[in-house]
């Protein structure tokens, strides 16, 4: 039977607490129970932090009305990918190697704490956040709530599954080559990769220092804006953090398509779609064409280079993070993780520098071509329906490399660019698996991106479907 406190959007949850339908403690108890039941069934949960969560809930419940109103996420009970450190809590990063209490708390979690949110668990990730399918030889595979035989996407698969299953209304993930947006698409939720440097990464276990980005997975676009509001801002402990003004992301979010220039790339992005994905995206294209937006065709020059070059950068920077453990603990890595990290050790420095060099040129050319004619781009998210866990379980079989390139076809160009990109559910296959669309904006134009995404979300009727494994069963 569905718990009436669960299965809500973040905004609905905040309203429950504000109207005192429930206390924060009651909401926390319900969430912990769902994590231990539905969450475990999906293998989405790394560990719950019951005592700490209930202590924080009690603290929040004791606050005065005045203090509560100052906190925009007051009483939101959340859980996050198992690469977010909280002082004193276990951190494993989906590995055998990392363990023990974290020495400090991630900047993004400080932001959520200040906003009044409560943190109650860590959610499973691909080992060291290196992978796009959701498999993990160490902790086991996360299951897709819509069909547990299918991959949830990765690496933030536990975050996507927990949100899609209605256990938590929002969860943080990380996106280096698509690791927020790919699982968001596979699990039918909203995933936002902010502009590189907008949200601080200190206290988040690194994979690739020049490509890692932190961001939210949520059930709605408005919820995504609310979480971004809490985590955006300069982080003095993240050397790539950028001092950018953080606007009110909800201020213009309901302004609709009117006046927006939407660009649809004519090259690369729509080249490799399977039939079900192509059909769902054709529906989105029609919605956009029929809207008040000005739709234009654009070219993202050299996009075909970006996926391969991002893959090389991730391999090299990932190998650098892991080099000491590779010397002494190679046997403790999963086969695919080890294969990918070892490859990074053999890449010539000159090739790595060429890839970084291309990145600068790619930013300049994209801004002066596609984004001269458009404010927001519409592109696919995954080029295909999420495969089954069995189909995508390639281990260190050499075919894994091509699968990563295929699944990252539409995500990695925007990691290389560092531009903000959002994955939005846009339909279902005949077999009931979600399909995602992706919107992209110029750097630091998250307000515009969220506005376009909200306008599209309003037009796309999700119906009343619920996942097979969820709190609604």
């Amino acid at each position, binding site marked *: 039977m569905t718990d009436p406190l669960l299965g809500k959007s973040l905004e609905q949850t905040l309203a429950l607490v504000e109207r005192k339908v429930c206390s924060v403690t009651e909401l926390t108890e319900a969430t912990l129970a769902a994590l231990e039941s539905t969450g475990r069934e999906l293998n989405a949960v790394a560990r719950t932090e019951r005592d700490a969560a209930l202590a924080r809930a009690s603290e929040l419940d004791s606050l005065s009305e005045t203090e509560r109103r100052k906190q925009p996420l007051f009483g939101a009970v959340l859980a996050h990918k198992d690469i977010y450190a909280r002082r004193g809590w276990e951190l494993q990063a989906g590995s055998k190697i990392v363990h023990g209490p974290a020495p400090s708390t991630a900047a993004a979690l400080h932001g959520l704490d200040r906003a009044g949110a409560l943190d109650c668990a860590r959610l499973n990730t691909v080992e060291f956040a290196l992978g796009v399918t959701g498999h993990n030889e160490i902790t086991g595979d996360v299951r897709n709530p819509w069909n547990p035989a299918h991959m949830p996407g990765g690496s933030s698969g536990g975050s996507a599954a927990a949100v899609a299953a209605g256990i938590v209304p929002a969860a943080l993930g990380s996106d280096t080559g698509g690791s927020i947006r790919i699982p968001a698409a596979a699990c039918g939720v909203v995933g936002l990769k902010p502009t590189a440097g907008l949200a601080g990464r200190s206290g988040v276990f690194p994979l690739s220092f020049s490509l890692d980005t932190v961001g939210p997975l949520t059930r709605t676009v408005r919820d995504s804006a609310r979480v971004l509001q809490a985590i955006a801002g300069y982080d003095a402990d993240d050397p790539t953090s950028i*001092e950018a003004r953080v606007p009110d992301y909800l201020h213009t979010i309901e302004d609709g398509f009117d006046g927006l220039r939407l660009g649809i790339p004519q090259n690369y992005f729509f080249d490799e779609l399977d039939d079900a994905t192509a059909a769902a995206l054709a529906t989105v294209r029609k919605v956009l064409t029929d809207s008040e937006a000005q739709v234009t065709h654009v070219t993202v020059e050299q996009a075909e280079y970006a996926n391969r*070059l991002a893959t*090389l950068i991730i391999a090299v920077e990932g190998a650098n993070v892991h080099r000491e453990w590779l010397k002494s603990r190679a046997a403790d890595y999963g086969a695919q993780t080890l294969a990918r990290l070892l490859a990074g*050790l*053999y890449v010539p420095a000159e090739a790595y520098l060429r890839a*970084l*060099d291309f990145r*600068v040129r790619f930013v300049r050319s994209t801004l002066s071509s596609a984004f001269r004619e458009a404010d927001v781009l519409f592109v696919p998210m995954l080029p295909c329906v999420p495969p089954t866990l069995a189909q995508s379980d390639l281990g260190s079989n*050499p075919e894994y490399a091509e699968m990563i390139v295929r699944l990252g076809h539409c995500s990695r160009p925007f990691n290389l660019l560092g531009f903000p990109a959002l994955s939005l559910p846009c339909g279902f296959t005949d077999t009931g698996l979600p399909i995602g669309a992706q919107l992209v904006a*110029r750097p630091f134009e998250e307000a515009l991106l969220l506005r376009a995404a909200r306008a599209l979300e309003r037009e796309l009727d999700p119906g009343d479907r619920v996942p097979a494994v969820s709190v609604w069963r």
Partner: protein
Amino acid sequence: MNDDWEARLLAQGVAPELIAAARATAAGMAQITHELTGQAADALDPVQFYLELQKLARMTHD
């Protein structure tokens, strides 16, 4: 990667085939990178990426 590295990996039981495959994957990635970026003009400083973003952050909200 130098010989000492490979010796350490082998001593830990990493299969020689896995090391050979990693070497081949890396060579493939480097080859593709050369093919894709071979026509690039003078090299740019990679730090330029962050300078571009900083400039855009200022421009966006000025």
